[in-house]
């Protein structure tokens, strides 16, 4: 691997004995930076904070709150289903609970928690001082928070969604969807998608433009690659569900007929639009998990991951194919045979990139320098067992004839919990354990961590493995009860016991978090001996992440100190200045001042929330609600710095204002 490419342009290369690299000079810079980047204080400050680490932490913590609530709902379902003809929950309660469980887990937990990890880790791992568009990310956080509150307030008011997480028409349409429940679901989707979309745009821009000098795309850490690909998937997938749910609301509110077969509409239009989003959605949840596997395996085997290029290409291929398989959720709708074979083939094709990644990781472990069986590594090793089971049942589901049998049964429930939890939540829990010292400055206890892992692993398999058999033995999903004569009682009881053990495991996990946070012993900068840039700074990092800012000379910067990449000097320290680099090769391009804390994202989010909630009740909510949104946006973007136009014009006429070239 070569050293950093020589930087060009108006960039000066300093010698090691330059006084600006002296400790006195750095100390002065540190004091200035501490000032310029200080976290906002007080309640008002908390509400205006935009730093990516603060927002990332909030995203993760809030997502875990919704996860716990969604998990409690799951435990309620398991209690209800543990015995035949149980009367703990009636049909109405059960339907709201399973719908809210699925909706929570998909829209309020799995996607946001992964984005939260991205918001926190990506700027660090690429050596940036801040995420791009930090205020937009803060706005995204508030929308996410308000969306979740909105959902759970409605659940408590008995107006929780009750048509499942994909809300099929006509059941959720104007004729059969009673009350406001379907609107609540549709608006929750709008909340969470808006949030994900703005974060996705920020992540793309961050990864494209804020990488440390020398970090060509070919040196981008694999976690950042995964988040980049996921962000693109979000950008192209989520508009589909925003569109379809808007049409649903319009059908319900202003009598449009998009899904009304009696007036030239079509209920299947909903299914196409929803799954055009819904299938990519599951890979949006899955790919960040894959992104976490690579650095964890590399760290605990002491080897760079084998097959970097193959892994990157696999991520990209998965994203592409992921947009071409949505119909495999609709095999039972009676589509023409030919089309179905096409979607079977596409669904099977998507296995190939996944398997390449698995084989590359096995090759990495095969050539390990050592293997440290720390808790994060255990989660990843377990991933191989559980995810592969889920993936293989996915292959079975991709076969039309077999899917006709097991579609909409507990077999599918088993498949998707194996891939969602096994494929994404296992790496997530491992990843949280791994990055916890960086995020909080404290290591998690290994003993509690391993206990939590063990309980969760056992409980997980006990809960979801029997569901395969239940599905084959005829148990449909989304039933609030079943007759004793069906013989499903024992396996359901087993699954319910497993859910209890899994909940216990999570309880231990959360206890570990609380206990470890109170420990005195501070975590080292790089407690695991990892290779990526986030471990080059303190734990937790200062608000501005790095002093001095790093450059990169290899793919595993911390493992190659001999390459001695130069550091970056010359960014202003008395304001939030960030270095913008070139898309492909990561060469320095310009310096950009970033915005600091601001209350406007919160105000804009409140205004948007009012618009969304109001529009459930009246179409005028969109019209009148747009006014406060507009006002807050103007407040947000109105410039605070600059000079009167007259002076600017005078400068130009005097030749004191010279534009930079468009391209370099």
């Amino acid at each position, binding site marked *: 691997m070569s050293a950093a490419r020589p930087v060009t342009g108006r960039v000066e290369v300093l010698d090691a004995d330059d006084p600006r690299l002296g400790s006195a000079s750095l100390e002065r810079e540190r004091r200035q930076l501490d000032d310029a980047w200080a976290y906002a204080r007080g309640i008002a400050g908390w509400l205006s904070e935009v730093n990516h680490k603060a927002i990332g932490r909030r995203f993760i913590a809030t997502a875990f709150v919704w996860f716990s609530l969604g998990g409690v709902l799951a435990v309620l379902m398991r209690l209800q289903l543990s015995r035949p003809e149980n009367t703990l929950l009636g*049909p*109405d309660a059960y339907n709201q609970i399973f719908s809210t469980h699925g909706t929570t887990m998909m829209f309020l937990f799995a996607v946001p928690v992964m984005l939260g990890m991205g918001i926190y880790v990506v700027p660090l791992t690429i050596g940036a001082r801040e995420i791009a568009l930090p205020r937009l990310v803060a706005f995204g956080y508030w929308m996410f928070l308000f969306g979740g509150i909105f959902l759970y307030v409605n659940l408590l008011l008995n107006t929780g969604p009750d*048509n*499942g997480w994909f809300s*099929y028409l*006509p*059941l959720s349409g104007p*004729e*059969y969807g009673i009350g406001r429940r379907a609107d609540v679901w549709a608006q929750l989707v709008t909340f969470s998608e808006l949030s994900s979309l703005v974060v996705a745009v920020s992540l793309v821009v961050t990864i494209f433009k804020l990488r440390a000098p020398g970090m060509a795309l070919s040196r981008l850490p694999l976690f950042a690659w995964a988040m980049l690909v996921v962000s693109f998937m979000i950008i192209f997938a989520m508009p589909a569900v925003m569109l379809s749910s808007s049409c649903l609301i319009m059908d319900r509110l202003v009598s449009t007929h998009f899904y009304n077969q*009696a007036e030239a509409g079509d209920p299947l239009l909903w299914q196409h639009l929803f799954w055009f989003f819904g299938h990519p959605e599951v890979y949006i949840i899955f790919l960040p998990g894959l992104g976490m596997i690579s650095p964890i395996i590399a760290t605990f085997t002491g080897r760079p991951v*084998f*097959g970097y290029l*193959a892994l990157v290409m696999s991520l990209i291929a998965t994203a592409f194919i992921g947009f071409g398989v949505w119909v495999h959720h609709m095999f*039972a*709708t*009676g589509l023409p045979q030919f089309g179905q*074979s096409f979607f*079977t083939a596409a669904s*099977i094709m998507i296995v*190939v990139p996944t*398997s390449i990644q*698995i*084989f*590359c990781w*096995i*090759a990495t*472990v*095969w050539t*390990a*320098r*050592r293997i440290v069986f720390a808790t994060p590594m255990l989660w990843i*090793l377990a991933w*191989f*067992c559980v995810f*592969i089971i889920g993936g*293989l*049942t996915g*292959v*079975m589901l*991709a*076969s039309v*004839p*077999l*899917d*006709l*049998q*097991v*579609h*909409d*049964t507990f077999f599918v429930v088993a498949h998707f919990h194996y891939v969602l939890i096994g494929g994404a939540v296992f790496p997530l829990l491992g990843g949280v354990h791994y990055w916890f010292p960086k995020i909080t400055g404290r290591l998690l206890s290994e003993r509690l961590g391993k206990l939590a892992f063990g309980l969760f692993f056992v409980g997980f398999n006990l809960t979801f493995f029997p569901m395969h058999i239940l599905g*084959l*033995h*005829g148990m449909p*999903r*989304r039933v609030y*009860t079943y007759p004793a*004569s*069906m*013989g499903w009682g024992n*396996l359901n009881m087993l699954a319910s016991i497993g859910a209890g053990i899994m909940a216990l495991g999570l309880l231990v996990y959360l206890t570990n978090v609380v206990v470890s946070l109170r420990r005195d012993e501070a975590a080292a900068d790089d407690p695991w001996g990892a290779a990526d840039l986030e471990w080059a700074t303190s734990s937790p990092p200062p608000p501005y992440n790095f002093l001095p800012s790093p450059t990169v000379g290899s793919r595993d910067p911390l493992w190659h100190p001999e390459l001695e990449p130069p550091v970056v000097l010359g960014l202003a320290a008395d304001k939030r200045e960030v270095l913008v680099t070139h898309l492909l090769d990561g060469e320095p391009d310009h310096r950009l001042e970033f915005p600091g804390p601001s209350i406007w994202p919160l105000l804009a989010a409140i205004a948007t929330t009012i618009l969304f909630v109001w529009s459930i009740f009246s179409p005028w909510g969109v019209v009148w609600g747009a006014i406060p949104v507009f006002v807050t946006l103007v407040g947000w973007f109105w410039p605070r710095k600059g000079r009167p136009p007259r002076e600017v014009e005078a400068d130009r006429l005097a030749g004191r204002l010279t534009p930079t070239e468009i391209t370099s």
Partner: protein
Amino acid sequence: MGDVIQSVLAPAGIQAARIAHLWWVMFWVCTVVFILVVGAMAIAVTRGRRGASDAGHRVLSRNVAIATAASIAALLVLLTHSVVTGRALETLKTPDALRIQITGYQWWWDVEYLNPQPSLRAVTANEIHIPVGRPVGLTLLSSDVIHSLWIPNLHGKIDLIPGRVNEMWIQADRPGVYRGQCAEFCGLQHAKMAITIVAEPPDQFEGWVAHQREPAPPPTLPSQQRGLDIVERGPCAMCHTIAGTTAGGRTAPDLTHIASRSTLAAGTVPNTRGYLAGWIVDPQHVKPGNKMPPLALSSSDLQALLDYLETLK
């Protein structure tokens, strides 16, 4: 699980048998793949632990490529088998098949035995009889939301979608009673929308269907007559049909031969006098949210009504 009344793994007809075969192929291929991949990982862990591997980049690349190629080969086998099975499922279509039209309602099944000759049609609900060994073409419609007809012992499921006409081709090769269930979430009582399939020898079936075409027998005893009066003058007739009487409602199950069916309320409870009485008096207790209102009847009226309904064999 000894119970096979509703199971993918106990096929009772050619379609389900084909899929069960596909399932076992998939199952074994996937099991082998699982063992190989997890086994490779286990070996990698034991070797890696010793930190002893000397495998060079070239060797690793070759092995990853081989594993990928093997996966692709396995996938092609599965894909081929799946497509071949799919084709085979299409071959049951024949012009001289028995045709039945099933319409989904929240939360029951309307069944009509089609015949070019209108007088040979028969209407019933929630229970179908089919002749063993003869292909049956089901025409699937919905009157409200999406449902899905699933009789795992005979075939996979196909949705009933408002505004569309779907088809499903089944054949029972063993006589028996099979249970099916609505598989697409369709609202409050999706859980209690079952269907019973009775596969019987052809002559027995012909007898059954001939009987189903008959109108209801006229009441013979006074209490039965009183029961019929209650039906015709009370609210029952607004929703239910009993052929041969003035009851002609079309929004609830046809009752012409209700007494010949084995369950009530789409498989919710067995069809006995006691359950029937409980259902009529308080249907919302038995199946909360269903569209039948409770009937306030004196106990003698109730007994008369039951007397009459029991004649509807």
